[in-house]
């Protein structure tokens, strides 16, 4: 009885561990950086979303210092979409096996938001 319960726990534990390892965010495809408006951090409410190949990664707000962090889990070309004050702009970034830093500078010209990598 005790032995079979131990076996069950071991099997469940093993499956749990395997599931954790398979679903935990890996370093591959990690993109991080700051979103800046001029030299200042982007305003509160600014969000960054990513699209890498056919995978979409939901928009997440930047923190008070304008930092964002996306674990795409996929390497290759990605498009980051920055949304601020109801407008959106995109920046192309490449994600690698190693984490990649991509600071983004926002600019508004003639009322239109644009973004570029710094």
């Amino acid at each position, binding site marked *: 009885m005790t032995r079979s319960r131990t076996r069950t726990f071991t099997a469940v534990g093993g499956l749990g561990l395997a599931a954790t390892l398979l679903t935990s965010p890996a370093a591959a495809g990690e993109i991080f950086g700051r979103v800046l408006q001029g030299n200042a951090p982007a305003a509160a409410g600014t969000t960054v979303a990513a699209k890498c190949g056919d995978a979409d990664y939901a928009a997440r707000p930047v923190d008070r210092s304008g930092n964002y962090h996306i674990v795409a889990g996929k*390497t*290759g*070309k990605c498009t980051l979409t920055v949304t601020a004050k109801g407008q959106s702009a995109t920046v*192309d*970034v*490449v994600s*690698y096996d190693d984490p990649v830093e991509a*600071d983004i500078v926002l600019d508004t010209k003639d009322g239109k938001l644009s973004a*570029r*990598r710094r």
Partner: protein
Amino acid sequence: MGEQKDLWDKFGVLLQPVGGALAALAVAVVGIRGSQVINERQAADTNARLYSELMSRREEAESSLRKDMFVSIIDSFLRPQPGDLGSMVLNLELLAYNFHESLNLKPLFLDLQRRLRETSQANREEYRQRIDRVAREITARQLFSLEGHGDSFRRSVDLEDLERTGRFGQELDAEEVQVDGTRVVVRVRVLELDRANQQLIIRLEVSPAEGGPELTESRATFQVGFYDFPLIDNTRLANGMRCAVTLSAWSKSNADLTTTCFPGEYASLKDRPYIDEVMKKLTKQAAPQP
């Protein structure tokens, strides 16, 4: 007949001894305070001397230790034991972690990389990963410290596109950077690709920014790989500024470059400033502020 004394005479008689006493008191106060100030200054001087003595002794002890360490490690590279790649990797790790601010270790990294490529030892992949990890860690550390004193930007290179364009290369978006109040425009053109060694040949061009001070344009062509460390391998510009380009990521289709510009005084210990640059800086510091 005695002369009639007025009020001022009476005051004079009363104040004369008081004045003397006050003068004596003032001399005593000035003397005590003066000796206190002198004592405090002497104590501060003694403390400063003691501190600098302790620091220089510590420096001396550390320099001697580092010298011994350096001699024994470098010896292993100059007289390598055949097949002892494990020791070479360990020695390179020791050298890199302890001397990355004062030595250009690229030749040793490349030599070890070549040896690892030629060997058939089972753990050569593990060794390669170890030296790559050291190189990336040191680059990241140096970049982190330099970015605090300068300005930087990052760009991605499309390697497949670069192969298609051939010798015309690929121009990356220019960026305006500001170092010590001087604004310059930095342009990077990637000219060639060496996939086997994960290296790029690039041309760095630095020109004055619009409305900025007049500066001589600088242009340099060099190789950039994972074993080029920004503190050591940087380009000296005409105004004492330095710019370094480092390879921060590599994949089959892309590479990421980080360009950092920083004041010359943060360059490596092996890098000596030009005497005229030092004089200019000293004159600038000595000049009265408007």
